[in-house]
């Protein structure tokens, strides 16, 4: 179940290696989409299942349109989320508005679930400042530097604890980020100070062109929790219910001063961003294999088989999602881009002498 240091008790004869660990990947939905017998139990209500499904579909429709818009030059570089909808939606859906998320650039569906309007992300990809006006939504500015946000989440969780707030900070990252020093420093601090923080890793198998086995020699990412005295769990990241239930339990633990590292095993179906071509560095066979385990198809099968969903509803949903995205794009178009004087004014609270002079010298240019 949970990976913690007690997993190692009594097992070690001499050398401590990862073969001492037996790590399962927890799921709620079996491959045939029946409920599994794992320790994670479905607590999500029917309504919640439908809502999560809708969020996933919204994420995918957004993703498709964003890709198309990038090709058409309407938006700039875009990092696709296709394949990771369950991991992002299931985790963010387990949070309340008291909780904070610290997303990377790819955690778009998670941010939508936590309240980011879609037009904000269009603004972000169009180079408009409104794309980073997220703090009132308890969403930390989208992080570009790999791993840096993990330390901000640690600081945020620390602030919650300091002030006695009922709030958990959830940091998002991919498998590649776990090689960064900031990842390790963050887990270490969280363990030492027992902070209300959840580290959510989407192990999507690829960090741009580098596969997971070249990223780490660990057999799992979840086991890295043990090195820092915190709790880990490995979940099926293409099973939205497993991700939701695991995150919900992790939040409870974090609130009790037990930070958790979640590894959601998933797959990046598309390129890293619109600037690379994955056929250059990975086998199509691997992609095909993962496509048979698509997170949206899987959840759809479950809700259809349980009578919660039908094709008519599906059609309506697709139409509705597309309309929402197009409307959001229209809204983003109306938002003004910033100006150099505004940028000069927003570097410090009060403009220092050098910037005042640069503003004056600029004149009307």
């Amino acid at each position, binding site marked *: 179940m949970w990976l913690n240091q007690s997993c190692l008790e009594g097992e070690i004869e001499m050398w401590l290696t990862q073969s001492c660990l037996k790590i399962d990947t927890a799921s709620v939905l079996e491959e045939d989409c029946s409920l599994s017998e794992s320790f994670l139990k479905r607590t999500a209500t029917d309504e919640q299942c439908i809502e999560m499904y809708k969020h996933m579909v919204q994420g995918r429709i957004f993703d498709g349109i964003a890709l198309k818009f990038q090709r058409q030059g309407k938006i700039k570089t875009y990092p696709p989320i296709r394949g990771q909808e369950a991991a992002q939606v299931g985790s963010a859906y387990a949070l309340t508005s008291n909780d904070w998320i610290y997303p990377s650039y790819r955690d778009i569906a998670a941010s939508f679930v936590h309240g980011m309007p879609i037009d904000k992300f269009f603004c972000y990809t169009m180079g408009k400042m409104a794309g980073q006006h997220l703090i009132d939504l308890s969403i930390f500015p989208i992080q570009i530097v790999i791993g*840096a946000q993990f330390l*901000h989440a640690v600081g945020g969780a620390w*602030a919650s604890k300091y002030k006695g707030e009922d709030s958990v900070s959830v940091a998002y990252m991919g498998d590649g980020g776990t090689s960064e020093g900031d990842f390790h420093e963050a887990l270490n601090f969280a363990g030492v100070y027992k902070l209300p923080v959840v580290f959510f890793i989407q192990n999507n198998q690829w960090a741009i062109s580098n596969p997971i086995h070249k990223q780490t020699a660990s057999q799992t990412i979840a086991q890295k929790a043990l090195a820092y005295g915190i709790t880990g769990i490995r979940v099926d990241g293409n099973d939205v219910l497993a991700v939701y239930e695991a995150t919900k339990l992790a939040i409870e633990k974090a609130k009790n001063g037990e930070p958790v590292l979640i590894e959601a095993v998933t797959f990046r179906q598309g390129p890293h961003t619109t600037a690379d071509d994955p056929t250059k560095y990975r086998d199509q066979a691997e992609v095909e294999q993962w496509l048979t385990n698509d997170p949206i198809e899987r959840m759809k099968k479950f809700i259809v088989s349980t009578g919660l969903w039908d094709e008519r509803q599906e059609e309506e949903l697709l139409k509705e999602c597309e309309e929402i995205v197009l409307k959001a794009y229209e809204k983003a178009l109306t938002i003004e881009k910033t100006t150099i004087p505004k940028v000069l004014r927003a570097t410090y609270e009060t403009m220092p002498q050098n910037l005042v002079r640069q503003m004056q010298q600029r004149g009307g240019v």
Partner: protein
Amino acid sequence: MEMTIVQAINTCLIQAMENDETILCLGEDIGKNGGVFRVTDGLLDRFGEKRVVDTPIAESAIIGAAVGLATRGLKPIAEIQFLGFIYEAMDQMVGQAARLRSRTESTVTVPLVVRAPYGGGIHAPELHSDSLEALFLHSPGLKVVMPSTPSDAKGLLAAAIKDPDPVLFLEPLKLYRTIKEEVQEEYYELPIGKAAIVQEGEHVTIVTYGPCVVTVKQAVAQLQEQGVSVEIIDLRTIAPIDYETIIQSVDKTGRLVVVHEAAKTGGVGAEIAAIIAENCMYAMHAPILRVTGYDTPFPVSSIEAEWMPTVARVVSAVQNVMKE
């Protein structure tokens, strides 16, 4: 009350923390040990472990977590044990703390103070004596404060704590205990970004800051005997730089020597020289000279005294500009 720089900073921290419960200090060995230079001595007993936090040895996490704290309503004062170790935290300092206001159009601000001792002169091991301020001068979004006296240290630290933007507060470790002066006991602030005219003069302006202020004062005492009237400007803050005070002074004297301990190329002196070239060219009687550390890493302790700007080098530079 007479205080050293260490006592002035310690007193300021205590007074600030007594007045504001959102302030907390974090860093390596700052608790029971009171910091390796004892700057935070007594804080743990007074404010407890919640507000005076010993951290694991992880500079990036100290600053990164402090960014997280600062953006959620607290006022962290982080200590980096020696400035030479801040390379470990460069992204969190420059890529994160400095940029958050700009990249969010001031919707996220980082009211953070990072304190760090710097400079040579105490025969410390490698990487303990570096003066890296120029790296941060070139990092928009940061303020860099470098006091040279106990009263400036106390007033400027108070201002740094109040500042809504991230401030790197650099403490000249050589001067920690070597200067003692009368310091106002009550809490007060001195403006960040305002240089001090330490001594007025007519013939040549020396712009300096930090530990070199002491070296320059000694050189100027010798130069006065030779009939040279020197105006000494202590920058106190290198980001932002106080253009007005420097320009006014050089317009008057027509001669400029910049003195700092950090390496020469791309340093604060280069920036000051450029400011003067842009603004005072026609007032100049002589080329601008720089007296600095060499363009090498800070050397081993047995030769550090020769590497750092000496009184003789400052005197010689001033004599050279006076020939013109």
